[in-house]
């Protein structure tokens, strides 16, 4: 093993150890298990967004749409169709992912700010549908009347509802599976074409890569990951309201990715840790917590444009 590979293994082991033992070390710093679950779910969303933003170089400002569709579809499935946690998640993933695939096909010829604008517009369409269609979605009050169901392994059951600890590990397993899929794709020939498009779109085109098709596939994959995270979010809260579709949540995901470091695979998770923990702590002190996060973002973007993780890396190689 080279020194680089060795360091990689150590870092990975440290990240997973921290996540696996989080429910035991977090209370020391004033954390609690449900906060850990929230970090993982929103972190997964930020990593799903960054799959597109950081590795294909395409900025979507409406990714909450797929997150929210996943959340609503999961909640509605549990409430009206079948009380099963895995099937709810599956439904959420499929609805958000397929919607992303269809609308993504209309988007891929747009670039830069135009792409971002259209994604915001799509997101807001779903927001107003959820807001207005009260008979199904519960409107402004949100979707209530469902709860995560026990996992049934026929020999035994795992109660996810009353045990925060069991739910945390459920989320962690889901997180691990999706993150592994993302990592495998990024290390594949297809993943390398995504990076080629990020690095130099014109060059990529003249190497024989059909850019629009590859961006569409990357966008669609990102939407599926996002919708899956949204489904977990509905399970986390046993609740979904129109704000999960709103562009301000899309903005939160972008902030997490940029703050943590969008060129790095684990950057958005670190961004989510900082964002969610600060939000949790500051919102207990002041209703204006967002202005503190705003200041932090400005500082990071000005002084560490590669994000917190980028700063750590730079220090090490310097």
């Amino acid at each position: 093993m080279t020194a680089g590979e060795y360091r990689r293994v150590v870092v990975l082991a440290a990240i997973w150890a921290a996540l696996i033992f989080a429910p035991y070390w977090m209370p020391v710093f004033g954390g609690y298990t449900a906060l850990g679950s929230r970090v993982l779910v929103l972190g997964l969303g930020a990593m799903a967004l960054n799959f597109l933003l950081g590795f294909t170089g395409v900025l979507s400002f409406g990714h909450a749409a797929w997150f929210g569709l996943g959340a609503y579809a999961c909640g509605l499935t549990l409430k009206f169709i079948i009380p099963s946690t895995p099937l709810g998640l599956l439904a959420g993933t499929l609805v958000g992912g397929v919607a992303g695939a269809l609308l993504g096909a209309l988007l891929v010829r747009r670039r830069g700010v135009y792409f971002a604008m259209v994604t915001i517009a799509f997101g807001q369409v779903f927001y107003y549908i959820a807001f207005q269609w009260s008979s199904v979605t519960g409107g402004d009050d949100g979707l209530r009347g469902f709860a995560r169901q026990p996992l049934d392994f026929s020999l035994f059951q795992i109660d996810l509802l009353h045990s925060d600890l069991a739910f945390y590990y459920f989320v962690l397993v889901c997180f691990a599976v999706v993150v592994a899929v993302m990592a495998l794709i990024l290390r594949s020939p297809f993943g390398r074409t995504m990076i080629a498009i990020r690095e130099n779109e014109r060059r990529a085109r003249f190497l024989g890569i059909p850019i629009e098709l590859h961006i569409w596939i990357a966008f669609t994959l990102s939407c599926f990951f996002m919708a899956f995270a949204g489904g977990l979010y509905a399970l986390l809260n046993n609740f979904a309201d129109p704000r999960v579709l709103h562009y301000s949540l899309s903005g939160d995901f972008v902030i997490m990715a940029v703050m943590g470091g969008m060129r790095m695979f684990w950057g958005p998770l670190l961004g989510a840790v900082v964002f969610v923990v600060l939000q949790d702590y500051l919102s207990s002190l002041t209703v204006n917590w967002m202005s503190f996060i705003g200041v932090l973002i400005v500082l990071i973007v000005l002084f560490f444009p590669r994000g917190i993780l980028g700063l750590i890396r730079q220090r090490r190689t310097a």
Partner: protein
Amino acid sequence: MSVLEVRNLSKRFGNLVAVRDISLSVASGELRAVIGPNGAGKTTFFNLISGFLAPSAGSILFDGRDVIAVPPHRRVGLGMARTFQITEIFPELTVFENIRIVTEVAAGYRLRPWLSAAEKAEVRRRIEETLPLAALSGKADRLVGELAHGDQRAAEIAMALALKPRLLLLDEPTAGMGDQETYEITQLIRRLHQDRKLTIVLIEHDMRVVFHLADRITVLDQGSFLAEGTPQEIAANEAVQTAYLGQAA
């Protein structure tokens, strides 16, 4: 048989005619230089051939097939590779990774989520075959963006070669280079032409390079065809001297 045949090609931008009624035919294994004063329409001509721009009139035959309606990435698939006047590479990736992306695309793996061990070995073998062509074997792990200008150009040519092209289009391969770098790139192109019998069309400003390398030269002036011939014929051509060499003096 001609690899590239261009017939009565024109391109208008509004009232400006950038390329006017140009025809040429490049034989298999030929090295053709396209020269002309600034504004002669050389780069536009290249952009038309590679599909970056759509022509206003005329036709382009590649291996006898009309490619006017073929989008740029498909023309690459047919065997047409190009480099750019301003080096176009993936600067934040290593030389190896740059070549790997191209090699995988050329092998038809671009949509694959994984490769078998045999396929990976084949990709690696091809990369290791490509690197020495551009004298980059010792620099495989360097970031391309950190290489010297001449090596970046060489890397770009290596990327084009990894596509295993039947026609290589080089847009000012020695632009912005010092004497030593120019010499090295010239030697590289010469090897590709003589040892590998590659068909090459290049645009070049440096006359030493052009007269040293080219089998035949096509001269453009203000978007129009001016002359075509061997380097000796072009050097002796009065119209060329007036339009081009005269202007330089």
